């Protein structure tokens, strides 16, 4: 075991894994995290704690992760390259592990232009690929990036990365996934899947290259509450693919929330049947309370004993 995290155990046991997002608040109220943690407690194999998502300032992902741990929920700590240099990242990794984190998700991070401080300077001292390699080096070679030894208590982390099958250039996305695996990724979370056909085509290429045997792939899924959310993602979020049928379906829905849940449940069934998919990652942006409902209705509860 690399980290002995629950997520790692579930995946290595060959069980279909479930993680879900937990977004920290834009204030310093720990109760928000505690409340959201209750939705996830016992229902997921990892609570993915976002790191100033879309470049909007929120409570630190590591602090929120520590609170989640105190509630009995195992976090997947997100770490973006936008806000910290290699010194701060390595320092925060040591701190996160000291606080009990066992999973780390490495991302480049949304550009600050999308957030509430577009005037900020970004860092990107290392990129997501280099971050993955750095964490692996700390864990497996017991060395900092500089080569200095970590004499004891090296950070034992299950290393996650993201890939977006819907971004361009399409063929290169599989090459880039292979590159992330080579850099050291243990599991992959994908961008939200709405376009199941494109996702399946991507997964076919992934399977053809045998990459699904080298890394666990969790399909990202987002339940939406309204057609507006779909429009927003289609028009404002780069690298998203939202089929028109889906928009029509949400448009004509009598109860959009229920329709959104139904679509998500159908997606879960579909991705389950795609070869090479090891689990799902739910991203109910700001709608964490729906996570247990969806998982119950998808027969993904209770979670397996590992």
């Amino acid at each position, binding site marked *: 075991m690399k980290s002995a995290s629950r997520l790692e155990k579930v995946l290595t046991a060959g069980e279909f894994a479930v993680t879900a997002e937990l977004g920290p608040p834009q204030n310093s109220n720990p109760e928000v995290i505690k409340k959201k943690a209750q939705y996830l407690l016992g229902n997921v194999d990892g609570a993915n704690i976002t790191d100033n998502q879309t470049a909007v300032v929120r409570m630190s992902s590591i602090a929120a992760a520590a609170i989640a741990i105190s509630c009995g929920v195992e976090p997947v700590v997100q770490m973006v*390259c*936008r806000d910290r240099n*290699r010194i701060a990242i390595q320092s925060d990794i040591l701190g996160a592990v000291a606080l009990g984190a066992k999973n780390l998700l490495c991302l*480049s*991070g*949304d*550009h600050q*232009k999308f957030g509430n401080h577009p005037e900020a300077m*970004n860092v*990107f*001292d*290392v*990129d*997501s*690929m*280099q971050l993955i*390699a*750095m964490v692996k080096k700390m864990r497996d070679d017991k060395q900092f*990036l500089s080569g200095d030894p970590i004499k004891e208590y090296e950070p034992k982390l299950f290393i996650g990365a*993201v*890939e*977006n099958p819907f*971004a*361009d*250039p399409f063929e*290169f996305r599989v*090459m*880039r996934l*292979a*590159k992330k695996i*080579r*850099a050291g990724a243990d599991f992959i979370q994908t*961008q939200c899947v709405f376009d199941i056909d494109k996702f399946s085509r991507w997964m076919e290429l992934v399977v053809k290259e045998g990459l699904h045997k080298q890394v666990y792939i969790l399909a990202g899924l987002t339940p939406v509450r309204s057609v507006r959310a779909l429009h927003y993602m289609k028009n404002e979020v*780069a*690298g998203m693919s939202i089929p028109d049928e889906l928009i029509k379906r949400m448009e004509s829905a009598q109860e959009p929330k229920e329709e959104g849940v139904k679509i998500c449940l159908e997606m879960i069934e579909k991705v389950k049947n795609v070869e090479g998919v090891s689990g799902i990652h739910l991203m109910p942006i700001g709608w964490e309370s729906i996570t247990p409902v969806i998982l119950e209705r998808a027969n993904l509860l209770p979670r397996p004993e590992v």
Partner: protein
Amino acid sequence: MIVADRKPLDEILDSIKDYKKIMLMACGGCVTVCFSGGSKAAGLLASQIKMARKKQGKAIEIIECTPERQCEYEFIDELKNDIESVEAVLSIACGVGVQTMSEHLPQAITIPGLNTKFMGYPVEHALWEERCAGCGDCVLGWTGGYCPIARCAKKLFNGPCGGSSDGKCEVDKDIECVWQLIHDRLKQLNKLDNLTVVRGPKDWRTSTNAGQRKIKFEEAML
């Protein structure tokens, strides 16, 4: 070349509001080519300033001059005497020109009239685009000639990020995703293998992180 853009007129007027006689110092180098700082630009700016100051009832005298390059002593030295006669110099050269003036002809204060933007070239008539950020360790060799440092909003070495869509950058649909360009060019050159290597973190000491950079050309030092 170095590309610069004129500061807003109000900002310029404010920066010279205390002076009655200034020198408007253009530059015959890069900024002439990008229209922001040549003798023509100087003539236009001088008349705008004079008009505005006349309206305010505070006339101003302006001496215009355009050395071949403002960033070399030999071209600005001849202006020494004129400088003594003015209260300030308004420079419409790049930031290097402004500093050459300040250090070499400190008799008068030199104020910038341009915002220096980047190193780039005109991709079409009257449109300049950034190409190089002077990072000090060029990677164009393996990127197929496209710079990920000056042109990628995240300075990625292992791009493209997940926001690359239809060849455009996630930050702005008017900006091409340089990683798409890198990919396409390497594909054309049959060198996509260049992108399968995990590129390690850059040593930023070669860039602006280790204090002022200097280059000494030993062979020329006699």
